[in-house]
Structures are given as structure tokens and as C-alpha cells.
């Protein structure tokens, strides 16, 4: 049935994290923890978009649920190669088997195929800009978290 829904590789985003310590607030009265990590910058490459992550333009504010699932709520600004500013809001989740999770917490390298890390971003960009199509398109992506950075691959849902 997969042929009903086609994906096409669109671009990759390499995000560098702020070296300041991550924050973890909680336990929250509503359950789980609220995290924060700032973004230092990054780069975007690929057939559909090229550019940079505007340095220090946002971060991720995940909810760390009691069942071990990290639910992302990331917001930051991209500057396309033509200078256009693009707002990005990224939702998704990550979870891993306990031993992989422990190694990720210790910032040790792990195989990106050993855990689940998937996202669906939303973009805002000026009307009549060459990137307006991004506001009318659904994307899905996968993440590969490393020490100090994460690499995302994004696909356009056709």
C-alpha cells in the first residue's frame, strides 16, 4: 500500500547545539520533564533547499515523557541561500531501548538505526518568495543525534 504515499528526498539539515548545558526542568506536576537546548547554528544542503540555520535563533523545548519518549518542540530560523528567512517548527519523537538510551545520555556514539527519531516540520515563509511551496507541503524526516550536533534528512510527502 506504500505506493499510495510517495516520499522524495528534499534536503538535509545539520544542526549544531549551543555548548551551554542542556536544561531539564521537573518532574513537572503534569508528568515528565521539560528540556531545553539552544541551537548554535547549522547548514542546509540538498536539491530543494540550501542555506544556514540562523545562529542562536531558537532551540528545542522537548517534553520528556515518563514512558521514556522524548516529544520534540523545536523552533528556529533558516536563512536560505537567496537570503529568505524561513521559520521552522519541528514536532516528532525519539525513543530508544534502555541500553542505547543510556549511551545517548552519556553522549556516546550510537548507530542511528538502533533507535527511533522521526519528525514532521512546519514552515512559515513570506508570500511570493521562491520557498512559498514549503508552506503548502508536508515533510517527514529522520534524525541522527551525535555529540554536539544532529543530522536530519527531510523528505517531501508527494
Amino acid at each position, binding site marked *: *500500500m506504500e505506493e499510495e*504515499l510517495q516520499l522524495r528526498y528534499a534536503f538535509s539539515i545539520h544542526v549544531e547545539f549551543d555548548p551551554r548545558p542542556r536544561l531539564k526542568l521537573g518532574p513537572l506536576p503534569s508528568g515528565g520533564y521539560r528540556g531545553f537546548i539552544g541551537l548554535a547554528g547549522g547548514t542546509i544542503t540538498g536539491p530543494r533547499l540550501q542555506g544556514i540555520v540562523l545562529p542562536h535563533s531558537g532551540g528545542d523545548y522537548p517534553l520528556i515523557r515518563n514512558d521514556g*519518549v522524548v516529544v520534540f518542540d523545536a523552533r528556529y530560523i533558516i536563512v536560505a541561500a537567496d537570503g529568505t528567512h524561513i521559520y521552522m517548527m519541528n514536532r516528532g519523537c525519539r525513543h530508544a531501548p534502555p541500553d542505547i538510551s543510556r549511551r545517548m545520555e552519556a553522549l556516546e556514539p550510537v548507530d542511528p538505526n538502533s533507535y527511533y527519531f*522521526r519528525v*514532521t516540520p512546519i514552515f512559515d515563509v513570506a508570500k511570493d518568495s521562491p520557498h512559498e511551496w514549503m508552506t503548502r507541503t508536508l515533510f517527514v524526516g529522520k534524525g541522527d543525534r551525535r555529540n554536539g550536533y544532529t543530522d536530519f534528512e527531510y523528505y517531501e510527502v508527494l
Partner: protein
Amino acid sequence: MLELEFAMEVRVRLGERIHIPTATHTRGTVIVQEGTFEGPRIKGIVVPQTGGDHPVIGSDGTARFDATYLLQADDGTFIFKRNYGVRSGPPDVLKRLLAKEEVDPSEYYMRLSPSFEVPPGPHDWLSKHVFIGTGRRGPQGSIFRYWMVK
């Protein structure tokens, strides 16, 4: 590449649409009257009148969905569903959709990324994965087909 696994088809009957033209956009609102859902791992009903869709409709006619309502699986489990997504297409096609005409779904783009809140147990795979899907709008309601992103 990402692998997809078909998760479910959801059919909903929708009530009357109300459009609120604000200074920046049009806020739509529509209540889900009833429905059903079915997939290889789960099936059940859309609990009548437990929510609806409140899309933001831009000046180009593109709708961004923000829907919430409840599902109930056959074993009685309640599931909170939130549906984000987008519908876009040529202006005349979007106009025909709003006029409740039957429009071939290949004439417009309607894609969704739902999320689910469920109790721990047999259905909690719904709250641990990202889902994407397609939507088609008919005169009486909508049909959504969702895939789990593996």
C-alpha cells in the same frame, strides 16, 4: 529512505462549516459528527461530537488543519487524536471543494501528520511513532489514510 507501514483509514462525517474571517486569515470550524476507523492492528469508532477541525485558511486558499477529537477502539480504549496537515491546490479547485462539490483528490494536495494520546498498553504504538497520511474531502465528510513512519 524511510519505511512506511499502513496504519489505518479514518472516515468522518462532518457538520456544517463556519468561517470566521479575521484580520489576518479565515478560521474555519467544523464538528466531527461521527465516524469509523480501521487498520491491520486496530479498529473502532470516532466518538460522536467529541471535537472537530479548526483550520487556518490563508488568502491563497491553503488550509492548515488543526483538528482534535476522540477515537474509541473496539476494546473500549479512548484515544485522543490531534491532526495537523495542509490542503492546497489551484484556486478554482479549492473553491469547488468549499462549495461541497465532488472533486477528484488528485486535483488537490491534502496531507496530514496526526498524533495520538493513548494509555500504556496494546495501543501505545500510536503514541510512540510519527504518522503521515493523505486526505480526501467528499460532500459529507473526509477520508484519511495514515501510515506509520518506521
